[in-house]
């Protein structure tokens, strides 16, 4: 059965005495402008039709009018929570087409910023998940702690959120000398905070009751639907681009990829929690191993790329992020296609919501870490 989602405006339709069609969104149903329509029977969702596109800005088209470097600030607007991780695969693809080798120090700086960004993104996610589950403290604590990591990013990037840090050829700024000390203090503080988070939230009966067995995605479905990131790893698939196809110097770093077999909202939340710990460990190792040296290769402002195509992927905060760039040998890309994890995870939403209770909808929705701006591009 298909519902009238197009040109019908917002509606709540009484289908029969016990059936109701409810339109949710697009005004920020928690995070991001996104609408979906559900059909409910009593308290149970029987159908869900996502309707994305409210924040579609035609980013892919706009890159065709800009040189490779000009596109970067525009690309990162798509994923403000995760700016380094969305510009990194773009830069890697551009570098592959330009035939540039990035200096080792720049690669380490990219890893540090990527992992810091992952923590920033996960903390934002955790805050919203907290309030969705009715836990106000878990809204305030992560968003407060997130600021400390934004400060760390600011020390390297120079801005708080949109630092356009990765550029083709390397990174914009080097790290200040006091960064390492500051980072170590932050990590020491945050590790103890994570224990607090676990104590008051992740191990609390409220959280367990609201998330265990809720919105279960089986392993085979996760694979066939092509979902990415935490959704995949919570369904028992050990997939992480940093391990599968290591970029930068991830092959020299040891870290764990958290995998849970449960496939439910609880597992997706636990993957997020564990990833923050691993990210801190990765930054620590990077700071130890980082060599001195150049941070970028100087390029012409009108740098040409060879004709051909490149498909580069990285592990962003929400999952595998990839850029497909087709070049005709000019100074601008002929075509860019962004394969973003949020768009890939959207397909799981109807699958998970059907059969769930209405009250579980926010928890399931946000456990996918679906970021509409990133998905719409």
């Amino acid at each position, binding site marked *: 059965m298909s519902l009238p989602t197009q040109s019908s405006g917002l509606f709540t339709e009484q289908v029969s005495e016990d059936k109701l069609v409810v339109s949710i969104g697009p005004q920020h149903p928690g995070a991001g402008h996104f609408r979906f329509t559900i059909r409910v029977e009593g308290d149970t969702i029987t159908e869900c039709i996502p309707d994305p596109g409210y924040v*579609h800005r035609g980013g892919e088209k706009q890159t065709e009018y800009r040189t490779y470097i000009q596109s970067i600030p525009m690309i990162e607007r798509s994923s403000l929570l995760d700016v380094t991780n969305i510009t990194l695969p773009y830069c890697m693809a551009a570098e592959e087409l330009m035939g540039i080798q990035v200096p080792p120090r720049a690669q380490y700086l990219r890893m540090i910023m990527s992992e810091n960004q992952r923590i920033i993104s996960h903390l934002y996610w955790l805050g919203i998940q907290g309030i969705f589950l009715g836990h106000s403290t878990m809204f305030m604590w992560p968003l407060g702690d997130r600021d400390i990591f934004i400060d760390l990013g600011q020390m390297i990037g120079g801005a708080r959120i949109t630092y356009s840090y990765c550029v083709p050829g390397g990174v914009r700024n080097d790290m200040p000398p006091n960064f390492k000390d500051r980072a170590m203090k932050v990590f020491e503080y945050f590790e103890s905070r994570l224990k607090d988070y676990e104590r008051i939230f992740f191990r609390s009966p409220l959280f367990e009751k609201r998330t265990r067995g809720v919105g279960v995605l089986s392993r085979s479905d996760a694979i*066939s639907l092509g979902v990415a990131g935490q959704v995949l790893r919570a369904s028992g698939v050990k997939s992480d681009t940093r391990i599968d*196809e290591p970029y930068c110097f991830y092959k020299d770093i040891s870290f764990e990829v958290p995998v849970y077999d449960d496939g439910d909202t609880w597992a997706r939340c636990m993957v997020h929690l564990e990833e923050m710990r691993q990210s801190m460990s990765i930054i620590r190792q990077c700071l130890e191993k980082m060599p001195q040296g150049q941070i970028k290769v100087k390029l012409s402002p009108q740098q040409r790329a060879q004709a051909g195509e490149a498909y580069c992927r990285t592990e962003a905060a929400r999952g595998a992020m990839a850029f497909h760039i087709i070049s005709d040998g000019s100074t601008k890309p002929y075509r860019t296609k962004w394969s973003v994890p949020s*768009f890939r995870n959207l397909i799981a939403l109807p699958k998970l919501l059907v059969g769930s209770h209405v009250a579980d909808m926010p928890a399931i929705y946000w456990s996918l870490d679906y970021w509409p701006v990133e998905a719409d591009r």
Partner: protein
Amino acid sequence: MSSGSSPELPKAEKGIIDAIGKLGEKAKLIYAKPNRIKFSVQRDDLVEVARFIRDELHFDHATNVTGTDFPKDGQLEITYHLGSHDGGEELRRIILAISCRIPSNDPKLPTLVNEYPSVLYHERETAEMIGCVFEGHPNLGRLLLPEDWTDIPPMLKAFRLPGRLEGE
């Protein structure tokens, strides 16, 4: 663009190329480099090749679908990027692309939703962005574009962004 396989390719990539080589003329190698392989197929063979890749080569999901307009050739190119989770460590690092060139004046392609359910939204997006009709797709309604979009599909080269001059 280099074509053909280079001698320093890892074993897994060579194995895939040899396996697809059994299909003969149906799949033509465009390029092969470590971790990335691209084949070109004809429209009528797309579903058969996709089934072969899924069943014999264990590429179990699609990560991306790109639609590109080549007005000089009068063609659209639809590229599917396929990945593998369960095919083992060697396959997980590989992205296998299959592309299909179709005439711009007859933009039709059979859907791969039955072979790869993960292309559901990717194909729907490609349909509205480039104007390619995926025959057999359950729903090709508007996804990202506004409901009242009346212009040509925006990723066609003939569509110019408002405010941008020719050649800018």
